[in-house]
């Protein structure tokens, strides 16, 4: 049995509604997607479908669902299940809640026979092999009724993944059993339990005590605290996240109307570059990330290999003197008190990174004559400020996918809010003609080598225009009980993660260790102490009650 600590609630077990990362992760164990990514190098591999072919005009994709794959209840998996799933999303807006963006460009989905799925798209779509949509069994879901009210908690939940959901106690735990019908072969252990922790310090302690076998999302200090702990192996993995410092480039709505109250000086790209140049990224990684990160550059983290971009010659090396000169040249002389102008920096209170990095940035900015006013606020306030563009500088971060389309798309002009200031999904209010043209190009470039080239050009453009400084790619810090589990499959094979993969390999490939006959002695001691405490309390109450009734007092 593998026991995993999760620090996020499960919002829903219905894969059409579930948006939390924790729920998506469990969804990946319950349902296969149309295609998957390998553990070794994250390349596209067989999922529900084992073959695919775009038409010459790239508007029609034909996927083949091979014979022999079964749902966990023994029913065959067919093309009709796939068509049913996508069709449901096309026809029912509620079913689009979680993964709707993957089907917005779909014209139609049909299953001419049991083995063939035909998807027609409105325009050529390069991400057709990156559809992160769980495929559900038609024979169960066509009886589901209203998707909005369907909790998908009829246990065991019929699925196609390596594990079958068997129990969910909200706020407490989730239990899954190995799917013996899984087409890749059943997992090497029988049960997989996820237990919920509100408090990550408690989760780390539980790992130390052996209450759980696997923990992720550790802070550097927590990770360090497990060093040398008997029975615990730590995994410092390449993460999918980057942390950025957003610089308000003069936010505007899609119709070109200014929005928010960003400092006017930041509209000048020379000023934004000077700010970026005054930040010592190496020092930030060492002091704030305690070395558990890689210095930032482009929008795609190094874990995604070929898509990752490094500035090379174009790198803005840390140089406060040059930054000062650039600000002088840009027409912002120092005043009598040595200050050129002031800026606000907004970050999240309670997030260690923001708290420490903001102090550091305050000093860096003061070196180039910019007075930083740091405000650390709640998560929601931070979101509100960045959405309304009422910031000068702000901390942010994104988790990225194997296909870079999503993270690149966040920075196109069309993502900015409409005339009423609502409905924006932009990250940085960036709007750049060259960047947008490249974005459209990569979206219809089916030659991968060429697409990689365009994606790198986009990152270079972003780096050059600095609507944000990518500060660091954080490591994913995980730990597991190596006395319970000998090894896990990481993605990618070299320096990869166990949890939060683009796949289910970490849990699926876990190999139990030969357990030594270690008695659960301490647990019984604890139970005994608990029992004695409760028993003692009862005795005291009884004793007090009896004494009240007695007449003899012990003192005069």
């Amino acid at each position, binding site marked *: 049995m593998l026991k995993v600590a999760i620090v996020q609630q499960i919002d829903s077990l219905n894969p059409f509604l579930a948006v939390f990362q924790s729920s998506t992760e469990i969804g990946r164990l319950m349902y296969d997607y149309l295609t998957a990514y390998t553990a070794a190098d994250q390349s596209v591999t067989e999922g529900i479908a084992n073959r695919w072919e775009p038409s010459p005009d790239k508007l029609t994709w034909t996927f083949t669902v091979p014979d022999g794959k079964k749902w966990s209840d023994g029913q065959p998996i067919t093309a009709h299940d796939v068509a049913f799933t996508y069709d449901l999303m096309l026809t029912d807006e509620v079913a689009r809640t979680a993964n709707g963006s993957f089907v917005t460009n779909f014209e139609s989905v049909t299953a001419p026979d049991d083995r063939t799925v035909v998807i027609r798209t409105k325009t050529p779509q390069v991400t057709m092999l990156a559809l992160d949509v769980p495929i559900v069994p038609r024979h169960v879901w066509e009886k589901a009724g209203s998707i909005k009210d369907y909790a998908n908690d009829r246990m065991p939940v019929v699925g196609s993944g390596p594990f079958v959901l068997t129990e969910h106690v909200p706020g407490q735990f989730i239990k899954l059993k190995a799917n013996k019908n899984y087409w890749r072969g059943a997992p090497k252990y029988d049960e997989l339990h996820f237990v919920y922790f*509100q*408090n990550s310090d408690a989760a780390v302690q539980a790992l130390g005590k052996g209450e759980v076998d696997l923990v992720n999302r550790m802070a550097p200090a927590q990770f360090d605290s497990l060093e040398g702990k008997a029975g615990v192996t730590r995994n410092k993995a390449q993460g999918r996240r980057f942390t950025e410092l957003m610089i308000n480039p003069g936010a505007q709505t899609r119709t070109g109307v200014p929005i928010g109250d960003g400092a006017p000086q930041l509209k000048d790209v020379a000023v934004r570059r000077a700010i970026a140049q005054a930040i010592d990224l190496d020092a930030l990684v060492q002091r704030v990330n305690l070395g558990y990160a890689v210095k930032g550059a482009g929008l795609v983290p190094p874990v995604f290999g070929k898509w990752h971009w490094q500035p090379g010659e174009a790198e803005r090396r840390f140089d406060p003197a040059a930054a000062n000169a650039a600000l002088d040249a840009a027409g912002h002389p120092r005043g009598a008190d040595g200050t050129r102008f002031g800026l606000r920096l907004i970050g999240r209170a309670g997030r260690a990174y923001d708290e420490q990095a903001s102090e550091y940035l305050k000093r860096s900015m003061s070196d180039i004559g910019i007075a930083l006013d740091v405000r650390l606020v709640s998560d929601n306030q931070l979101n*509100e400020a960045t959405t309304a563009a009422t910031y000068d500088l702000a901390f942010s971060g994104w988790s990225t996918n194997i296909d870079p389309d999503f993270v690149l798309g966040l920075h196109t002009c069309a993502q900015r809010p409409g005339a009423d200031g609502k409905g924006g999904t932009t990250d940085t209010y960036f709007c750049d003609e060259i960047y947008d043209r490249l974005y459209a190009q990569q979206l219809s470039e089916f030659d991968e080598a060429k697409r990689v080239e365009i994606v790198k050009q986009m990152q270079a453009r972003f780096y050059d225009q600095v609507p944000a400084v990518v500060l660091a790619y954080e490591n994913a810090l995980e730990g597991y009980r190596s006395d319970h589990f000998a090894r896990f499959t990481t993605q990618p094979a070299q320096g990869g993660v166990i949890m939060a993969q683009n796949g289910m390999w970490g849990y699926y490939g876990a190999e139990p260790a030969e357990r030594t006959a270690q008695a659960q002695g*301490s647990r019984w001691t604890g139970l005994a102490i608990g029992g004695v405490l409760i028993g003692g309390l009862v005795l005291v109450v009884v004793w007090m009650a009896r004494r009240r009734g007695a007449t003899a007092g012990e003192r005069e």
Partner: protein
Amino acid sequence: MRLAGRIGGAALSLLMVAVLGFFLFRVVPGDPVVSMTRGRPTTEALQAELRAQFGLDRPLHEQFWSYFTSLLQGDLGTSFTFRRPVSEVILERLGPTVLLVGTATLIAVLLGLWLGVRAAWRRDSAFDRVTTGVSLTLWAVPTFWLGMLLMMVTGDLFPSRGMRDTDTPPDFLSQALDVGHHLVLPSVTLVAVVCAEYALVMRSSLLEEMHAPYLTTARAKGLRDDLVRRRHAVPNAVLPAITLVFLRFGLVVAGAITTETVFSWPGLGLLFYDALTGPDYFLLQGLLVVTAGAVVVMNLLADVLHGVLDPRVKVV
């Protein structure tokens, strides 16, 4: 008549809470739809669909009216986060909270009152000084910190999270033992935090009675010191303390939120904490109505009970 007045007052407070709850949580910064789709590929159309699903695109007064009319029919709406009726979600978490708060309050009241009586009766003794000192210290300590400390100090004697293990046998005895085992640390934490106040109030209230003439009379009758305390002093001194138990119920609820967060105890406190990060308006409103309702009822009980315990205060 006065009782009816009290009940009317309580009902009015509840109504105010219900109205306040709606506007209070809408002042909380943050857009639930943005939170719901954070970090996921999304489009403007998708966000608009979500807004419409939850009625967030309608004017505020319409939203309020539909909230209020459904509330009167006992419908608390649907949680954005869990996509289920709020009443269902709250009901699921009510049991664990009642268990934790109930156990902790019971222990804290018994222990606090007993300590307070002992400390007052032997004022300035070593027992008094230690009790008062320890009570004040525990009262001042942040709940969160105390919980974490207890968890660390007790090592692997007690579980660090939740109410049940996933691999406990399903029979009743094993399950009950397991819940008891999980209950130890959270209830000790909560007792430590709330017990002090009961002890201190009981102590000072008994001290006030100490030199009352009726005690001298009792002693003059030749009663033993112990009987003087138990039969004469304590019954008079316990009144404010009992009232306090009910009046400070809100404090216990606040303590429970922190304690549940530290130990991932699956109760209402933890739910409150999670709902705030949305912000999950309907869930927050529901939780406020339920918890405020509990506090209002407790206050009402305090009123009534005071009358029962103290013949001088006639309620009915």
